[in-house]
């Protein structure tokens, strides 16, 4: 039979996947180190020195403005849940962090792109006021856009499926069906087994959610470019979902393996519990860090390459920069799909081990 070559090629693919991943982990560590020293913005007088760290950080962190280009930025709604009540206003009132806004209950200022309650004109923080920021930030706007896009795409595809029962796929449907089948046949089935059907909606949603947000992050102009899947809050939510799904569905074998491991001497059990309970949390934690680090690192690299032009203050460096950026963007395209795949694959794997019938 010709099964062996297929198996081999899968092993090879997995090898490539893991090596690319480890490459990115090291690149990410390097990238984070690079920008940590110069945190405060050096605001000298005329023609401020270009600070790539500041620019890059500004691009990859969340913001209350959606930058379109140059000085043009779209103000976004600010929603503050304070100890005294709800406050809603547009972020344009801050005038790019210059002004203090006098709200209904408190005075607010934009400090490092974060809204803080302040006592007076000198922007000293008002520690008595409790403010919970629920604003539609750049990332939230991007998130809502991606949700809208996903709903649009998949509801229309679903209606096509309903209309064309038993017929060959067509259009968008035929573009997405192989991906859906890939999630089913390469991710869900081999890792979860025959009970995969129950977890398909979650796996598909996670896969396409991560994929579309990774891709939106790669679009360099206005509605795209947000670093949503490179934001630790987003990856944390996704990882917590995995954590909950895995442990809620864990069967008695799974819990027995953690709490009463038959192959471990009883005196070692306390240590075993510590390790296993750490393991429960470290697996989703790794998911969170992996996605965050990969996507953020990709953004940092692309932005660093672009920053080179401004650091050297020379157009001559532009072709080199652009060539590298194109290369990186193509690589990021691969990473966007790879990370969506890996996150979903590992989620399926964790679910699979939690619901496995026979433990050895």
């Amino acid at each position, binding site marked *: 039979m010709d099964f062996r070559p297929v198996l081999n090629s899968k092993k090879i693919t997995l090898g490539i996947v893991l090596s690319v991943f480890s490459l990115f982990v090291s690149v990410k560590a390097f990238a*984070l180190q690079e920008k*940590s020293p110069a945190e405060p913005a050096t605001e000298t007088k005329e023609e401020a020195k270009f600070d790539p760290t500041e620019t890059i*950080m500004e691009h*990859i*962190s*969340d913001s209350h403005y959606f930058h379109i280009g140059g000085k043009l930025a779209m103000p976004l709604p600010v929603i503050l849940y304070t100890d005294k009540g709800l406050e809603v206003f547009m972020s344009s009132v801050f005038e790019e962090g210059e002004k203090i806004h006098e709200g209904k209950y408190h005075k607010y200022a934009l400090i*490092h792109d974060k809204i803080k309650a302040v006592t007076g004109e000198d922007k000293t923080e008002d520690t008595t006021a409790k403010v*919970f*920021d*629920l*604003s*539609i*930030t750049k*990332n*939230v706007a991007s*998130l*809502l856009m991606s*949700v809208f896009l*996903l*709903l649009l795409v*998949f*509801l229309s*595809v*679903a209606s096509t*499926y*309903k209309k064309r*029962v*038993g*017929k060959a796929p067509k259009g968008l449907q035929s573009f997405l*069906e192989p991906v*859906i*089948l890939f999630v*089913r046949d390469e991710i869900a089935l081999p890792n979860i087994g025959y009970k995969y*059907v129950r977890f*398909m*909606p*979650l796996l*598909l*949603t996670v896969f396409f*959610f991560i994929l579309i947000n990774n891709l939106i992050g790669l679009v360099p102009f206005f509605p795209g470019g947000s670093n949503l899947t490179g*934001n*630790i*809050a*987003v990856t*944390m*939510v*996704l990882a917590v*979902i995995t954590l909950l799904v895995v442990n809620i569905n864990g069967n008695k074998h799974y819990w027995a393996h953690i709490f009463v491991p038959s192959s471990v001497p009883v005196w070692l059990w306390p240590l075993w519990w510590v390790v296993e309970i750490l393991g429960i949390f470290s697996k989703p934690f790794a998911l969170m860090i992996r996605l*965050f680090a990969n996507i*953020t690192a990709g953004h940092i690299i692309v932005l660093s390459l672009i920053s080179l032009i401004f650091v050297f203050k020379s157009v001559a460096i532009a072709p080199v920069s652009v060539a590298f950026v194109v290369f990186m963007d193509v690589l990021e395209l691969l990473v966007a799909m790879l990370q969506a795949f890996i996150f979903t694959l590992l989620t399926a794997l964790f679910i699979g081990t939690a619901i496995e019938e026979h433990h050895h």
Partner: protein
Amino acid sequence: MNPLVVPDLGLVVWTTVAFAFLFFILAKFAWKPIMAAIGERERSIEDALLKAEAAKEEMSRLTNENESLIKQARAERDLILSEARKAKDQIVSDAKELAHKEGARMIELARVEINNQKAIALADVKNQVATLSLEIAEKILRKQFEDQQQQNELVSQLLKEVKL
């Protein structure tokens, strides 16, 4: 701590809400019908393939059957033909034999008849010859014994012959 690794709670809330919303809507209105349709189509394709296979088998079975039917029919035809030939031969030979026998019988009858007729004719001829001979003998005798002397001589001769 680097602001990059500090999760912003507002975004956590928004992501949770948005993802939950997305998940429930897609699970109910997209993934369910899509997975069902894909499964349905896969089953129907498998069904169609199985049916095609069955049809192929049925076809070859029918062909085989037809062939055997033709063979059987041919054998039957040959049998019927040979039987007919045999019957024809039988009839011909029977007819020949019968004709033979009949001929022989008729010939036999004819011979008997001929013999009979011959015997009758012969008897007739014999009678006539006897009558004729008698008449001739009478006439001769009459002629011979017209004179007395000759009569005496014969009587004497006859008397001599008688020995007492």
